[in-house]
């Protein structure tokens, strides 16, 4: 099914050799093969089955400090020869940039550790179908649920990354994911919610009944929402969305945003950005981790980094190009973060809900209202009112707004961190945000 390392290595070497023959001084190449099988159900009936078999070659050629790239899905040598020629031609006439280069040799990954990222188990489509039937059976038990959709995807991936400095590495990864979307209805008005699980190994997948039940329960709880008055209030972010705060941090501390001067956290290294109780870690070497990797997208060794220690910003996310601009060495973050998480807080979820008389608890945001340059934040939201520690009624058609700089300083974490995604955060509270409603 999935092509082996030798097949991919052969193409990578072909690209490097041919590029050098045509005048490239340096070459980087990635060859990828992935096979994906997806089955989806709707209202307990088969809806779609999809099989994907995809190849990709990403090639970058350098002539001294000039650089150009090509991508192709056609691995035939006659096609690659043509494209390599085109790439070299473009490289020759692209203006040079002193920061263009392959990574420093001594930073390259030396050995590939088995991080348990590949499960060779094939889950045949009839098993997927059985799984999805169970998901939907559980999701549709309550009569308020009027529509269910469920999907199961199995993905197998293999790649080789190589460059003309002699680096060559790659490995197989797998991913199984399953989701359920439930639509509930009361008095003609509908709400939608979901649940999903994603794992490297099939055996770690959530039970289908659990996925269905969570999606349905959440959709039913959202029925009959109210719009609330505009006010300043503490906002609690559900675990499904609290990780978004970390994604914002990651964008703002990427070397590109720092070097270009387009981050609200520019010049904040070694400054207090979060309350001193907060630690943020990016660890690429977690066994079975969804964001785990041996090396980054340039082949640079990646190790665990404390991005924020006791509230102080300690590291940027650095690749080779922007590292050179900033006079810093790559820390293996070309391609971004790996397994990024807040260390869990001390308050239990219940204590957090009880820490004030009234909160807004947000379970979903919509829109792309974060501005990395200014730190301004404004998004559509829905969730629940919390009064005396209890979720009292659903809320929708409101916005929450603030500025990340102040929001970061007003975070309190609960102690319920789970490693469910590649970026993970516990439930968190941000004091004093502006809610716009009626």
């Amino acid at each position, binding site marked *: 099914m999935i092509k082996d390392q030798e097949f991919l290595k052969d193409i990578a070497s072909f690209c490097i050799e041919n590029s050098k023959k045509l005048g490239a001084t340096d070459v980087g190449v990635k060859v990828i093969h992935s096979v994906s099988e997806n089955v989806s159900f*709707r209202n307990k*009936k*088969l*809806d*779609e*089955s999809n*099989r*994907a*078999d*995809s190849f990709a070659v990403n090639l970058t050629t350098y002539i001294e400090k000039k*650089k*150009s*790239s*090509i*991508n*192709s*899905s*056609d*691995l*035939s040598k006659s096609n690659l020869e043509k*494209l390599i020629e085109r790439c070299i031609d*473009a490289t020759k*006439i*692209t*203006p040079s*940039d002193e920061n263009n280069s392959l990574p420093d040799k001594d930073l390259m990954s030396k050995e590939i550790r088995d991080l348990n990222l590949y499960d060779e188990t094939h889950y045949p489509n009839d098993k997927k179908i059985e799984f999805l039937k169970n998901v939907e059976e559980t999701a549709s038990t309550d009569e308020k649920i009027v*529509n269910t959709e469920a999907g199961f995807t199995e993905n197998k991936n293999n790649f080789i990354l190589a460059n003309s400095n002699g680096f060559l590495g790659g490995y197989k990864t797998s991913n199984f994911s399953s989701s359920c979307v439930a639509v509930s209805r009361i008095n003609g*008005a*509908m*709400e*939608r919610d979901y649940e999903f699980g994603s794992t490297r190994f099939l055996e770690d997948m959530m039970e289908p009944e659990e996925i269905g039940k969570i999606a349905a329960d959440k959709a039913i709880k959202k029925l009959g*929402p109210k*719009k609330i008055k*505009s*006010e300043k209030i503490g906002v609690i972010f559900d675990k499904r969305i609290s990780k978004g705060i970390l994604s914002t941090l990651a964008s703002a501390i990427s070397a590109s945003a720092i070097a*270009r*001067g*387009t981050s609200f956290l520019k010049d904040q290294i070694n400054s207090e950005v979060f309350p001193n109780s907060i630690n943020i870690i990016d660890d690429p070497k977690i066994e079975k981790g969804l964001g785990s990797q041996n090396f980054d997208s340039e082949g640079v060794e990646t190790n665990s980094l404390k991005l924020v220690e006791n509230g102080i910003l300690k590291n940027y996310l650095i690749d080779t190009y922007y590292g050179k601009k900033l006079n810093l060495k790559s820390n293996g973050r070309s391609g971004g973060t790996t397994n990024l998480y807040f260390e869990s807080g001390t308050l239990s979820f219940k204590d957090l809900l009880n820490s004030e008389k009234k909160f807004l608890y947000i379970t979903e945001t*919509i*829109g*792309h*209202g974060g*501005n990395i*340059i*200014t730190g*301004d934040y*404004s998004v*559509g939201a*829905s969730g629940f009112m919390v009064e005396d520690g209890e979720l009292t009624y659903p809320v*929708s*058609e*409101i*916005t*929450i*707004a603030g*500025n990340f700089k102040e929001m970061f300083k007003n975070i309190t974490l609960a102690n319920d961190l789970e490693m469910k995604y590649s970026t993970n955060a516990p439930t968190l509270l941000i004091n004093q945000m*502006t809610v*716009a*409603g*009626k």
Partner: protein
Amino acid sequence: MSNFFKETDIDTSQAEAIVTETLKNCDDGELYLENHKSESIVLDDNKIKSSTYNSDQGYGFRAVTGEVVAYSHSNDISKESLRKSSENLKDTLKSKKGTYNHEIPKTNSKYYENINPIESKTFDSKIDLLNSVNNYLRSKGSIVNQVTANFLGEHKSIEIIRSDNQVLKDDRPLVRFNVSVVLEKDGKKETGVYGVGGRQSYDDYLKDGSWKDVCDEAFRIANVNLESKPAPAGEMKVVLGPGWPAILIHEAIGHGLEGDFNRKKTSAFHNLMGQQVASEGVTIVDDGTLHQRRGSLTIDDEGTPTENTVLIENGILKNYMQDRLNARLMGTKSTGSGRRESYKHVVLPRMRNTMMLSGKYSQDEMISSVDKGIFAVSFGGGQVDITSGKFVFNCTEAYEINNGKIGSSIKGATLIGDGPSILKEVSLVGNDMKLDPGIGTCGKAGQGVPVGVAQPSILINKMTVGGTKL
């Protein structure tokens, strides 16, 4: 035009035979072949940051019976690969029987020329223009902190082979030119973004120094935002400017009128056909036939010729947008709205150029009628929850309105509303309908497709503005 079977071990008639044999017990389906060339050249931080050329080719083989879609795609156009896909499709649909539906209308219309924009402008002249953009903007003073400019060009050839040797073809050019500028003044930084594009060559959009207009507009927006105050929070009147703000229509109404969500009854509009969903005077169409527009298509990705579909006429809901599958299941016909991002994706009913048509009021009349509200001129993106109908979009240029007069500019804020009720809150429709500049991409189910929007100025009685100032 690409010959997909050149340099393969299979020819057109053998492929046609596999298609006919695979689909004989199905209701619909096709072999969709695609050759896609694209380029991206980016100038950033005074340098050519990247130049990338992409070449992608593959097929998507689809079999449809009842409500079930079986799909298999691959880069490998070969006898073995197609046979494997065929087996896969037959296996999925083995217990189902259908009758093949052959009907695809013919068209002689063409809404764009078969040019390859990547090759019709030299690489050197693209680099030169990007450098000119950088120099031109930076010459506006030390206030200019960062300049990014890029060319995105593509040429897509598609071929659709249907059962019984029906073959449909289209060649689609598409370009986009974007400029983004960051200004810094007194420690405050703001961005301005502007772009142009459509289904012509780059030079059609950039000739005679018109690239400077793109730069000036990006600069103007950033400059306005440097002076911006915190946006208000709460419900108020909103005047939307003409053109690009029509992404409100796209999010609030458009998605909810796509056939799939209505067939599945998950759209907030699914039981409103024939009913009043907007104020009288509001007419909204989705038009795939505008010449050279970003959202236009000669035929859709199932081969159906596109059309100008009336969605809402004088406030009454008239039609949904349909692909073949949803049209068949809802007992109607395709509106030429079946689209896919690439051969890797299944067809979904999608928007093309979604437009609210002109009414009779002037923008001045609208603004002078507002005691307290905002005037929104430009937007970033938007998003909608189809089921609850709630939608948002982000202002990138907006002003306060006080006592009928435009006041100071306000910071970017999200506006939120309810799709099925928002159009009833439209109290005045302007006489100044404008098309957007040709930069929109719509995302649905992980697939991005180029779209257009248009509208005149409109006055909305009540919307929630998501600022920070209470």
